């Protein structure tokens, strides 16, 4: 196995990949070509089912029992990978080509110490001694910026946090100095601020180690921050490729352009410039049309030209770097001219206050039954999930609750829904304090007027019952209708409302896609004519274009019914797009609250500042101030006595932050910040996200 160090690190030509299933052969990737030089970072972007993970698996020659490389070549440093024996492939994997997966906890063996797992890599591939392997591992752990590497070496995976686990996995990938690193959505399972740290790390590593990278993601913002070149895939084919600058500023393919229209960029506005979801559905692999796969969904489809024969990649003339597109009509398309302003929607009129949260507190008791704890008198510990929550919501308004895992937003949703009761404080809804009324004791009318849309579309519906049955049950339970025929009518009306075909009535959830299931979840929530709907990260598990469609659906329904929407999310881009007012939570307490504009402009709470800086934005002309948080999330059972953010705060002023709870400062009527730093100082901060005005832009987006 002789490597040619002068050849490109990876050279893929005309690759065709297929899977063999019960239904026959399914082509997964068609006509894929890619060249990576030393030190280059390539992004592979696409939605579910486009084949990007399949390509990564094929590079590793690990396609599973039923996957085959039908044709084409994959050359790693000049060596054709198809020709290698399993033995040689084994030596290649982990040493020359490493792969990093999505779930860090699943990638680490829970019963071995991290040191054992890390040392395994160089010991097996290079045969060095244990001592040398240990030293090298400690060095790489330092490179991935893990504090206290020696302690991490001795720890087990469950003893460190998710972000740290992913850093360890990255370290494992780097230990034998691979030439190529494959990363398959490495940050999807992580919190936003943690994700920002890992993303920066990955970008730096490429430079430091000279490793080439293939970064697979569905998030265009992340690709912008990490990669040099990007490939956009749709339904098994690459539809466009180019440098970051070229592709992001001048997308040539209608699908790429459509993707950008689905992302809530800073310039989007839910009333003036709403998201433009891509119409239609992804074609099933065995139902791909002749010619362009994107044809049926394309606004610029030309019958006869676009569906007559397979379309090859053509070079974009006038672009300095390698920008190629797979489109018949790209020379004729002018997206700027296509912008029409009749998609503007009327703003929702805000009414009176419907929800008042007044000093709400929710503590959980954790009983430590060990003898030692009982003797010490500390057998009952309190988890302070929510502390002193204060805000209100008005009719027709969208209030977003923003925070990362462990901030208490789910607990708050549970108290509102009646699955838990508040330990102190009041939650006034429709006049009554529902904070102390569990759902069992609420009237059907109360229950029906406050409903929830859940996060995970695959779990939100009962797989054993029909769609119609499930929605009908809700209607019957809330007493909206009682006659069978009327219930059925109402269910069909709801299906129309969420733009699903009426014959989904008899279907079961497993016959629906993720986006369709989420629409049914929305239909179910609105079945009882609720006055307020809590949406718990409703689109975070969906693809970009599907998420855009569901988001637009939610706003349309809200506009029509004047529903108050309580939107829980960690994605500040979507929040900026949807919310009228925002509440930022950290470790159970409110750090800042105000209108969307007030939150996104200075004065900032330090945590808000870090959150804003962590949001990946897919607009190359938007500049962000970089703020990376160090330190760890404190344990909920042992929160800091003073400000909860003190362990990670980049503007910590001193002991007062550790000792004293900050007082709430009012920057303006309705804009509250809980911080010790005086307001005047906070007002002097520079904005975190700078959006250039339309005139200053190279390329007009909306």
């Amino acid at each position, binding site marked *: 196995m002789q490597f040619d160090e002068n050849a490109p690190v990876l050279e893929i030509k005309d690759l065709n990949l297929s899977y063999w299933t019960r239904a026959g052969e399914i082509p997964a990737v068609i006509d894929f070509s890619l060249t990576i030089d030393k030190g280059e970072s390539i992004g592979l972007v696409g939605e579910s089912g486009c084949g990007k993970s399949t390509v990564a698996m094929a590079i590793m020659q690990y396609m599973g029992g039923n996957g085959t490389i039908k044709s084409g070549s994959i050359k790693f440093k000049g060596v054709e990978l198809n020709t290698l024996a399993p033995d040689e492939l084994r030596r290649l994997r982990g040493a020359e080509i490493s792969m990093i997966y999505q779930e860090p906890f699943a990638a680490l063996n829970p019963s071995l110490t991290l040191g054992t797992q890390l040392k395994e890599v160089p010991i097996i591939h290079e045969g060095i001694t244990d001592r040398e392997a240990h030293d090298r591992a400690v060095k790489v752990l330092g490179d991935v910026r893990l504090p206290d590497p020696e302690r991490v070496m001795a720890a087990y995976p469950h003893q460190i946090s998710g972000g740290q686990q992913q850093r360890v996995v990255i370290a494992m990938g780097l230990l034998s100095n691979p030439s190529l690193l494959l990363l398959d959505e490495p940050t999807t399972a992580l919190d936003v601020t943690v994700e920002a740290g890992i993303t920066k790390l990955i970008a730096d590593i490429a430079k430091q180690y000279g490793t080439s990278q293939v970064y697979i993601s569905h998030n265009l913002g992340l690709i912008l921050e990490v990669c040099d070149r990007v490939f956009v895939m749709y339904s098994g084919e690459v539809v466009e490729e180019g440098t970051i600058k070229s592709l992001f500023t001048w997308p040539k393919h209608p699908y790429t352009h459509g993707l950008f229209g689905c992302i809530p960029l800073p310039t989007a506005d839910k009333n003036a410039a709403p998201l433009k979801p891509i119409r239609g559905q992804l074609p099933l692999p065995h139902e791909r049309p002749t010619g362009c796969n994107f044809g049926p969904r394309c606004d610029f489809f030309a019958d006869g030209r676009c569906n007559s024969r397979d379309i090859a990649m053509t070079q974009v003339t006038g672009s300095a770097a390698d920008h190629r597109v797979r489109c018949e009509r790209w020379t004729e398309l002018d997206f700027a001219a296509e912008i029409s302003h009749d998609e503007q929607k009327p703003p929702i009129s805000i009414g009176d206050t419907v929800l008042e949260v007044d000093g709400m507190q929710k503590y959980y008791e954790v009983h430590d039954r060990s003898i030692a704890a009982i003797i010490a008198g500390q057998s009952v510990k309190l988890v302070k999930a929510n502390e002193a929550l204060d805000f209100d919501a008005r009719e027709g308004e969208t209030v977003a609750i923003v925070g990362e895992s462990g901030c208490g937003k789910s607990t708050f949703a549970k108290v509102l829904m009646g699955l838990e009761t508040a330990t102190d404080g009041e939650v006034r809804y429709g006049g009554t304090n529902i904070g102390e009324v569990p759902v069992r004791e609420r009237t059907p009318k109360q229950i029906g007027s406050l409903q929830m849309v859940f996060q995970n579309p695959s779990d939100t519906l009962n797989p054993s019952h029909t769609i119609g049955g499930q929605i009908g049950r809700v209607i019957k*339970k809330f007493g909206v209708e009682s006659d069978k025929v009327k*219930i059925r009518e109402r269910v069909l009306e709801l299906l129309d409302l969420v733009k699903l075909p009426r014959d989904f009535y008899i279907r079961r959830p497993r016959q629906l896609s993720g986006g369709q299931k989420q629409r049914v979840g929305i239909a179910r929530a609105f079945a009882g004519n609720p006055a307020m709907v809590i949406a718990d990260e409703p689109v975070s598990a969906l693809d970009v274009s599907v998420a855009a469609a569901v988001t637009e659906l939610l706003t349309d329904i809200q506009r029509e019914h004047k529903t108050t929407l309580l939107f829980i999310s960690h994605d500040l881009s979507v929040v900026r797009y949807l919310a009228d007012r925002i509440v930022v939570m950290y470790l159970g307490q409110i750090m800042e609250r105000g209108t969307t504009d007030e939150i996104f402009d200075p004065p900032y709470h330090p945590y808000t500042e870090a959150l804003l800086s962590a949001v990946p934005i897919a607009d190359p002309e938007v500049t962000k101030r970089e703020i990376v948080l160090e330190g760890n999330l404190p344990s909920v059972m042992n929160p800091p006595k003073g400000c909860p953010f003190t362990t990670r705060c980049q503007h910590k002023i001193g002991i007062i932050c550790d000792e004293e709870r900050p007082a709430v400062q009012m920057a303006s009527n309705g804009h509250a910040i809980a911080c010790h730093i005086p307001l005047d100082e906070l007002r002097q901060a520079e904005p975190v996200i700078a959006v250039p005005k339309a005139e200053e832009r190279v390329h007009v987006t909306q």
Partner: protein
Amino acid sequence: MAEATATPSMPAPTFGAALMRAIRSFALLRESWVGMIGAGLVFFWIAVALLAPLLAPFDPNATLMPFQKPGALFPGNETVAAGTFWLGTDQLGRDILSRIIWGSQTVLIYAPLATLSAYTVGILMGLAAGYYRGWMDDLLSRVADIILSFPVLVLYIIIIATIGASGVVIIVAITFASAPGIMRIVRGLVLDLRNRDYVAAAQTRGESAWRIMLVEILPNARGPLIVDACLRLGYVIITIGVLGFLGLGLPPPNPDWGGMINFSRSMALAFPHMVLYSCVAISSLILGFNLLADGLREVSLRD
């Protein structure tokens, strides 16, 4: 649009639709040859049980000619027609083939009944323990632990010898001994399923706890339970056989495979045919259920 056929107002499916789906899912079994063999054996014995009056050459309790070897001829007498003792006769002169054929009815009635009864109790206990948690879970789990800690045979002997052997008592005894094991399986499944969003959605609708358990959670646990049911049927058949062998089975003269083996035990060395064929019958039926369970598990995993 098929609006006439579907009358969906309740989330639970109609029985007819469920039956159709069950039949269609059996068709999937074609994929697993192991499952096919198992299904073949099971259906063979079901057919034998159904057609017993037609298949059995003699009355299973008629004492005709003792100690006949397999293949011996029966010349016939005033009341009984002539025929062949294909599998020989036992020491009382009863035709073994007929007893095996009629015995299949006994097994295939009592075993499913006992399993069903055990499942009903086990599912109710498991649902309550897994959903409510807290003291109810502790109580039920400890009760289950206590019952499971008894050696099974000792348990049966205690129950049946005390109350007396009869069909109902056997079913009760088997239920008592099997329910805790089923409860543990169901409890494990419920502990996982109760965290799903659709259960939370039902709770936030204000549904009653038992409705959530039976309508929302239980239908989604049916996969592993069906596989377990097949396996457990096998165990129950062994149990009925063992009880028969110990003399605790159905009182004579009901032909009961285990009882047949017990009855002719002392003759086994001289006349092996008296016990051999009953053993083969029991083994083949249990093997059938085990292979069927394996096949179902294989097919369900593949989806």
